[in-house]
């Protein structure tokens, strides 16, 4: 039982850390602000899920599990909202977009409104 619990803990922690690592690499490697936000919002959410589940399994008391669940609920609400704000301000400040971007309907609509 303790072996099973330790293996589960390690699997959760390693997968969580792996996703965090990939997210950080993505922030360095991807071509523009929006793609970097894709990496940071998705990977950090799932990474946190893995880390907290690992901690909850390792500690194992109802209190620890409840705290982990509450933290997860807040993280799932807050992380995307943070990404939205960053993306919005990136667009508002006219951040360079990757040259492969096919169309930008937000900029089109803003041009229409200004015209």
């Amino acid at each position: 039982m303790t072996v099973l619990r330790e293996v589960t803990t390690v699997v959760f922690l390693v997968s969580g850390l792996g996703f965090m690592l990939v997210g950080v690499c993505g922030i360095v490697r991807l071509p523009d602000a929006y793609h970097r936000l894709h990496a940071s919002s998705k990977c950090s959410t799932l990474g946190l899920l893995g880390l907290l589940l690992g901690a909850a399994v390792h500690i194992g008391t109802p209190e620890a599990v409840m705290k982990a669940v509450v933290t997860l609920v807040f993280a799932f609400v807050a992380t995307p909202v943070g990404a939205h704000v960053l993306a919005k301000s990136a667009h508002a400040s006219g951040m360079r977009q990757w040259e492969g971007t096919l169309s930008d309907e937000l900029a089109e609509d803003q041009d229409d409104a200004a015209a």
Partner: protein
Amino acid sequence: MSRRLVLNVGLAGIYLVWADERSWLGVLVGIAIGFVVISVYDLSTGLPVYAVRLFRLVRFGAYFLAVLVRANLQIAWEIVTPGFRQTPRILRYPVAHLTAVQKTVFANCITLTPGTLVVDVTPDGGLLYVHCMYAEDRATAITELRKLDERLQREVFS
């Protein structure tokens, strides 16, 4: 529906404090009591069966978790393989048919599903601007968003 889930968990919490329980069995009993109370209330007032709605919500949770993992694997693959194969666009998606809370949940779900990120919303809340990483064909990308929208309305907001 989400209100009922909060009520269910809240009733379990009240039971735990009241009965001075600190065990896993206590948590299960508390959730079961909350489930029975809400089920009886919904039956007697003629609302849809609580068990069915709870099942739909749990199914959406499982689906959402699978989608989140898929999103991560996709972006991880994009990061570790050389070169860029994205075909990004910023699309507009109409959300005038949703309430404020539904829009927020929908926007968060979009950001956590594969290849999509909400960039902006119009001041009147009628349009979302979504950055799609793989949107070679505009209509296909919009259809994907609509599927998520419909699924959310059917399984969470019903």
